[in-house]
């Protein structure tokens, strides 16, 4: 018997709706895929505070259980484009997500998967588009519990546009990091050794942080480095729906035109794949069963 928040897809399952940046997209996943949804207790504060707009509320439920009207509303949100979140909603949501106790997020799962399909983390989607920050949040989430849901050498597929449109005022350091440092190297040790000190003491970036409301330049380095354990654990990182090729490449992702193509690449020589899907990653923390955790550790 599976936990109420774990849904195994059948052949008749509806397409899953995932966040891709601050938009919604549909992905058709094969039968047998295990999808993880947030527990009610995890999102109760968001719902109570009205921090989620209706389409986001629907995103927290199993698509197969939505009524025709609800599903139509979700599709309408996909057609509409960007989620119309107000600043106060986004601020409230970020505060709740940041303060959510880990216990509330835990969803028990039986075993690790070969491929994990994830949507953009909500906290990343609610902010302006920042692929570096998204990468950091996603990869750090994967290893947060110590036992990643993906097997060692497995594949992570994320839906994100990787738009090169940083907030030049607030995320000047991220822009600089991606466009100035990453073309030189993506080796974290090398980056830290050669560029970290110089980068975090850059007078222009520090001035923007002190007077212009920009994040500290160390934040860009932190966002890169916090993804490092997950990057070393994973075999491939693939993004679906990117609007350019170079940004995913700079951040260490392959690009695929569709989820089918991404799964085909992930499959490689394998005969079968265990596929998992987490639509709202920062609202779900997969908790492996003792047996699976022991196997993962071994």
């Amino acid at each position, binding site marked *: *018997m599976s*936990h*109420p928040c*774990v*849904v195994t897809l059948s052949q008749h399952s509806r397409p899953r709706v995932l966040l891709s940046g601050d938009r919604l997209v549909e992905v058709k996943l094969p039968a047998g895929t295990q999808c993880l949804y947030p527990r009610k207790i995890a999102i109760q504060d968001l719902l109570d505070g009205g921090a989620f707009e209706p389409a986001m509320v629907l995103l927290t439920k199993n698509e197969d*259980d939505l*009524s*025709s*009207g609800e599903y139509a509303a979700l599709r*309408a949100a996909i057609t509409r484009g960007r989620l119309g979140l107000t600043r106060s909603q986004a601020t409230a949501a970020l505060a709740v997500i940041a303060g959510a106790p880990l216990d509330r997020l835990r969803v028990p799962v039986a075993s690790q998967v070969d491929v994990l399909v994830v949507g953009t983390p909500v906290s990343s989607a609610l902010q302006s588009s920042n692929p570096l920050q998204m990468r950091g949040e996603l990869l750090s989430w994967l290893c947060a519990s110590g036992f990643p849901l993906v097997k060692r050498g497995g594949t992570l597929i994320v839906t994100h546009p990787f738009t090169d449109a940083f907030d030049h005022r607030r995320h000047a350091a991220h822009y600089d990091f991606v466009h100035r440092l990453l073309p030189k190297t993506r080796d974290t040790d090398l980056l830290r050794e050669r560029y970290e000190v110089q980068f975090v003491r850059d007078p222009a970036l520090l001035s923007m942080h002190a007077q212009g409301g920009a994040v500290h330049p160390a934040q860009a380095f932190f966002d890169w480095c916090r993804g490092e354990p997950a990057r070393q654990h994973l075999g491939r990182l693939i993004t679906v729906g990117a609007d350019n090729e170079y940004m995913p490449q700079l951040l260490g992702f392959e690009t695929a035109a569709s989820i089918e193509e991404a799964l085909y690449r992930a499959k490689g020589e394998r005969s079968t794949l265990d596929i998992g899907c987490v639509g709202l990653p920062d609202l779900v923390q997969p908790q492996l069963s003792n047996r699976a955790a022991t196997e993962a550790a071994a």
Partner: protein
Amino acid sequence: MTQRAADDRLDLSALLNDAQVIVIGGTGFLGKVWVSLLLARYPGVKRLYLVVRRKGTDSAGQRFWQETLTSPVWDPLREQHGSHFESFIREKIVPIEGDIVLPQCGVDATLRKQLHGRIAAVVNASGIVDFEPPLDVALEVNAFGVQNLVALARDLGDCPLLHTSTCFVAGNRTGFVEEEDPRLHPFPRAGELERAHWDPNREIDECLSIIEQAKERANDAFRQSHFLNEARANLLARHEPATGDPLEQEVERVKRKYVESQLAEMGNERARFWGWPNTYTYTKSIGEQIAVASGLQVTIVRPAIVETSVGFPRVGWNEGINTSAPLIYAIREGQTQLPGSTHNLDMIPVDMVAGAMLMALGELLDGSAPAVYQLGASDSNPVTMARVFELTGLYKRRHHLLHGKGSPLRTAQAHVEGTLFTSERFEKYGPKAVARAARSLVDLVQRRSESPTFKAVSQPVLHNIEQFAKGQERIARLLWQFAPFTADYDYTFRCDHVRAARARLSEADRAALNWEPEAIDWRQWFLHVHVPALERWVFPEIEKRRRRPPRPLRAHSSLTALLEEMGRRHDLQVALQHAEADGFSRISYRDLRTQSLACAQRLIERGVAAGDSVLLIGDNQPAWVMAFFGVLYASATVVPVPANCEAADLTRIVRVSGAKLCLGDATARLRLGSVVGSCTWLSVDDFTQPGAWPSWAQQLSVSTTVPPPPISTGEETALQIFATDQQVASFSHRALCETLASLAVKFPLTPQDRLLSLQPLHDPFELCSGLLLPLSRGARVAYWEGASLAWALQEARPTILVGNPSVWQELEQLLRVQARNNGAIAAGSFETLLELSRRLNRSGIQLGRVLFQAMHRALGGELRCLINGNGAIADATFRALTALGLRVSNAPSPEPDPPAAGDFSQHSRAATLPARPKSSDLN
């Protein structure tokens, strides 16, 4: 043919006095009227041997006395003979077993020997009435049947033969059709094609050869594979078992349909080439030629369209379902396009045909009969198809104005006139074209609409259009069969021979046998005789066939076979759900099957053998269901016990059932664990652990290798219920599966349906309707033990609820309380809206879901059907729930096997059911 002596008087009484006649087809529409008329007018006839087909276990005699003799066609004889009617019939009619398709018509050899030389004539009034039957069926009755008739007549001492055919063997001809020997004009295109190529016997040989070939080709490997695929798809679509016997039967059915369609096509091809419009007239003509070439004394009677009587057995008697009735019915029901023209439509009342057949028989016995008698009205009092169409329009208008009050659609129909099309225009613009257009529209909308919102809205409309298209195709097929006779050919059948025969009759005989087609006032006959007769005798039959209840589905051989099939078919779809802190957990059909098999293995390891009883105690939850199937997989019998069963009762149940094992949940174990005596208690709690796969399954290492399911004959006892009335009711696999098959027809659940369990599973009604029925249709069942009903309704959003009258009464009360809680105004308006909804329902307008949105939201928002069992629902409750827009239907409980005497006499207290949902649960 014997030379005719026209100047002689034809004394029918003398000819028929003491005559013994064998009648084939005497139970059909025409045959019955003929036999009744013969006995009514000429009671001096010695005996009629009526050849009647055996039907199932009913013998010829049974069929005659129970089916044929109950017809109003015998009323004149009943009036004549009063209380002696039965003895008169027994004296005059001897029903004998036989069939025209059998050698010597299946008449017993001893009887044939007894009757040799004593039979005055053999009369055949039989024939198939389908216009486009498969070639083999048509030949069997219309051609080989005549060969059998001839053989019978020969065997009886070369006695004369009166054979009934049809005027329409004339085929593709227009104008006068003479009453000539069929051999003179053997096929309709005889003036155009080389006659030497036509030989009826060669036709039969060639037809037999192609029938053989068609049957042989159906055995080709690729066809076999295709049949198998189609059969599987059919069974899946109908939710029937797709393995074992049902699959074999379906493959046979698909194959038979294929061969039949091939043969129908082949028959039509040959018929059309020689000039006949269909296989029916083609084979009838072959039959005629066989009869006249036999060398016997033969006469052929060819009636036109046999219709409602004008005098005998009464004014307005008709049973003909394949004549003008379907056309008139189709127009009445709204069909506006028909194939037709201003050509003659030759209709003749059945009593006139019967009278003319008696005249023909008289001349046959007299030795003066010509080869053919045509019986129609077109040469003396013609009526055209256009006129019949007009009269039908008049009838339709009157009918809808009279019966359509209150229905705007029917009132509108009274003012819609139809159109007659030529065959070409009917093909181009008729119902077939309408169906094509409807399908194109559906295709176009489906191809263009990407939006799921639009799809959700348009789906029901598209489904209705699809159904409409199917209906139009069906009507097109039906009407097209009539097209040659109503639109293409303009016949005038000469009926000189019957007129000449009538001229030879005495005044008394002429008065007794009506042949005056020229005296028919078609308007008066149509509106005041024909249509009332159709409305009384024929339309109810057509409506019965249209609304024939769907046949029950094929049943699974056993409950384990059902789960095997559903496990394969629905695999990862959700089968069961259970209320947890975070919502409803999900168990797929695959998991249910695998875990049930694992449970079975565990039981077998504990020593459970085939035929043993296993007690099952606990609240409704998925573990109960898995254990239930686990016991069945172990070939044992489940003895469900109420969760709140008293210790004393349980002790008795253990003793009477002889159960070795008891599967129970923790609560039950705490209360009853000590009273099961020698019975070993096993916990089902492991089943319900969320997250990981059951620990016991891992201990047994059965997660990957489950035992193969046992083969069940279906006769084993699956369930034993220790009822409150101290009786033990046993249910076999077969009984439960058959109940399910009949329930599935009445409640066609879909995999999208969700059912919330309200009653305890140990009740056989709940087990069947509330668990096995949804599982047999791929639907899901949710168990909410430990949660509130209001929460469960909101979370599970059931589409169907199963319960008994008290559950519905409680539900009604809950809704009324909810209305009252919203204030006096809300309570008052609730009652008013209920009344309004009830009134609208009576007019066919369903607004319950709109008027009571808040109520529906409280019930989950998607509830549409309530299945009631275990008693009649209170009238007030029924009216309130249906006014809410819910469909309430009764379902039967499964029938137990013949009762076994159980040692349960000491069972003093009724085993009480678990508590019903409380009112407070919804608040």
